């Protein structure tokens, strides 16, 4: 409104401008506040977009961290060292030699939280008259306690201690009709093709809630497995859990292990990685939509601004301002507007995320209870996503001036005479 404009312009040049700032930058900032309500509403939209992107991404990153960690800690770890062919063809013969020496070397690396060797084979398990097929796992009980949540998922009895102890999944126990203290007989094929046989006593029944595991798993001490299946100091995999999932690449680079193969969690659990990708794709579509709507609103704001200030622009041109300078001033206004909105959105979202990172977002009662039995947190702790923050800020700092540019182009067509004559 020209009534205000008359006072705004001279004031913009006055004292408090920091030295070196071009006058036009300060004028742009002041112009923004000539229509407070409109600026608050438009920058509110920008702030909302930034807020939404940062909070949604941070919560998701937190969820994914818990999900990956949850899955990785159950059995497979963050990365495994295997015989190069084992991943495609999990045959008994594809073993790692000198597994103990290699394990020690890995454990000595920085960032490694736990290391465990395992040997695996399918075999027939019999309890009394009933028999069933199960996945035998020879494990190092102490290492597993540090690496995996399975020892904590023992529902009845205890985890492995003595050489003849075995623990079995709850569904397998149901199928076998096996209880604590029952003797189990394992019959399978040994490494040399002969018969592998062993007997053990059920000391624990595990319930992880993962069907595949509860239905098939049977763990026993590694030495017992090696003896029964005719193994030396060898294993099928060395499973590694890291302090932070991001350290996988560093570990693989530090220990190239020629002749062997590192298999990462993405390969071990392709379903989780794909689910993360899928969810991210969905989120980005939503972000795009919100950004587009905010852009429309910025466009309208500038269409209105330019329309209302035609007379003012005519005046500026009459006293010698070039049209492209007016365009530049409007673009600076857009940039200020974007910056202001981004700041508000960033401040609010960072405050919320950091608070929630302390307090946690409680999961539903059912999920929370299930997580607790696995020694996992029953809350999601969002992790502030810097890429989301900078990405959202960059997106808005580009989109807002762009959206403002199209209506602002109109100023180039103005001539002082027609502009000054315009009646509102």
């Amino acid at each position: 409104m020209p009534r205000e404009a008359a006072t705004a312009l001279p004031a913009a040049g006055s004292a408090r401008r920091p030295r070196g700032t071009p006058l036009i930058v300060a004028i742009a900032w002041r112009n923004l506040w000539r229509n407070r309500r409109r600026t608050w509403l438009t920058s509110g939209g920008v702030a909302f977009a930034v807020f939404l992107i940062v909070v949604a991404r941070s919560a998701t990153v937190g969820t994914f961290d818990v999900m990956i960690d949850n899955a990785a800690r159950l059995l497979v770890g963050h990365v495994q060292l295997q015989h190069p062919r084992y991943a495609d063809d999990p045959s008994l013969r594809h073993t790692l030699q000198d597994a103990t020496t290699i394990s020690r070397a890995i454990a000595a690396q920085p960032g490694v939280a736990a290391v465990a060797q395992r040997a695996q084979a399918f075999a027939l398990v019999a309890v009394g008259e009933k028999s069933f097929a199960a996945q035998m796992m020879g494990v190092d009980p102490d290492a597993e306690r540090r690496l995996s949540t399975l020892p904590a998922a023992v529902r009845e009895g205890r985890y492995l201690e003595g050489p003849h102890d075995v623990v079995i999944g709850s569904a397998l126990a149901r199928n076998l009709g096996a209880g604590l203290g029952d003797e189990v007989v394992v019959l399978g094929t040994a490494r040399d093709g002969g018969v592998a046989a062993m007997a053990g006593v059920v000391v624990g029944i595990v319930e992880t809630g993962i069907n595949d595991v509860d239905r098939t798993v049977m763990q026993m001490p590694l030495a017992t497995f090696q003896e029964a299946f005719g193994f030396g100091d060898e294993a099928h995999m060395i499973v590694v859990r890291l302090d932070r999932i991001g350290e996988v690449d560093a570990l693989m680079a530090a220990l190239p292990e020629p002749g062997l193969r590192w298999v990462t969690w993405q390969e071990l659990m392709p379903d989780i990685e794909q689910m993360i990708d899928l969810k991210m794709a969905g989120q980005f579509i939503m972000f795009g939509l919100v950004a587009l709507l905010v852009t429309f609103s910025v466009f309208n704001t500038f269409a209105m601004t330019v329309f209302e200030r035609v007379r003012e622009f005519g005046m500026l041109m009459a006293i010698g301002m070039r049209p492209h300078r007016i365009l530049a001033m409007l673009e600076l206004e857009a940039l200020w507007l974007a910056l202001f909105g981004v700041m508000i959105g960033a401040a609010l979202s960072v405050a919320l995320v950091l608070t929630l990172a302390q307090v946690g977002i409680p999961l539903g009662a059912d999920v929370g209870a299930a997580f607790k039995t696995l020694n996992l947190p029953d809350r999601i702790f969002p992790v502030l996503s810097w890429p989301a923050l900078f990405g959202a800020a960059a997106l808005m700092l580009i989109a807002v001036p762009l959206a403002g540019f199209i209506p602002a182009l109109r100023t180039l067509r103005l001539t002082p005479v027609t502009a000054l004559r315009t009646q509102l």
Partner: protein
Amino acid sequence: MTMPMKLLVQLGWRNLWRQRRRNIMLLAAIFVAVAAVVLTNALIRGVQYDMRDSAVRNLTGNMKLYAPGYRDDPSILQGFELAEGWQPAVAPADLLGWTQRVSVPAVIMSERETRGVTLVGVSPQDERTQSFLGTVAIDGEGLRDADDGRILLGSELLAQLSTQVGRRVVVITQGADGLNREAGFKVVGSYDAEGTGLEKAFAFTGRAALQKLLDTQAVTEVSIRLNDGANETAVDAAVSHDVGALELLDWRALEPLAAAMYEYSNVAILVLFLIVMIALSFGLVNTLITAVMERVREFGMLRAIGMRPGQIVVQVLVESTLIMLLGLGGGIAAGIGLTVLFADGIDLSNFAQGVEMVGLGSRLTPRLMWDDVVLVVELSIFLGLIGSGYPAWRAVRVKVLDALRRGT
């Protein structure tokens, strides 16, 4: 003075055209928002029903009957026999089909490998309406009938056993007397359940053939499928009334995770709608306020010649409602058009295992539901009215003399 509504609408319509550019922009924003919401709602519904269907079709059925002890001890010892001529108490219009199965744990051995599976004795004709088995792609042959004594394996299991269609496998399972039975089965074919875990978990043979092997007339489960739109709770109550000591469980109880995701989708639709509408509202309110503020003099003039405050409010509301309705109509038409365009489904096979985790097929098919469209219309109009509330209030507050005295 009373103004007929027709005149107010006409006036509102003309007023909109006074600021063509920005109103077209606002219209475009509403249009995009509504079209996107209609499409994403349809996609979320597609996901939701797809999840329920695959939960129901992976041998779960809409509801299932078990002997009370079967879920703790899934063996033929926990079987039951249905009375001659038993039919589930479901109205024919609601019933898609039902079947009896024998489902027992078993060990399968090839020359090289050993695996544990659930061996299911089925009646292949019944399964056409019951489960994925009716529609799944099969390499080799399918089972002929309930007397077919050959075995159908999942392709993943076939690979793990390193055997082939046409070869024999040995099956060990517990008979009705509690003793183990061991029998050779010829592999009749392998089914491809799109790489899902079903392939490893289930092997199929004829029900009568399996009953013969186990020395029993009993079955372990009855599975019932309903037509879309049947009232599950009502059917549930009717069936459970008539099954004696047997346990009736619906898919929500059998697949709690899928049921939780199903409920979550209802919330997701609302949340998405709210987010989009909030994003839209900044621009909407902004434009409407300006439309009022720049016409302060005009409103003052109208008041001066006798228009009542209530009519001013109606005037502003008519304008915002008109633009909302236009955007809404166009957006809904475009959203429906988009769902029709994507009716063949969106290919998700790049995420095959990821979508399996959430219980989806590899194609995402939108599913347009009128209730959702109606909800979008209702909420949009409601939010539009709220959004124009403040501008309308500002318009009423205009003092006649002040307004007329203003320079512009």
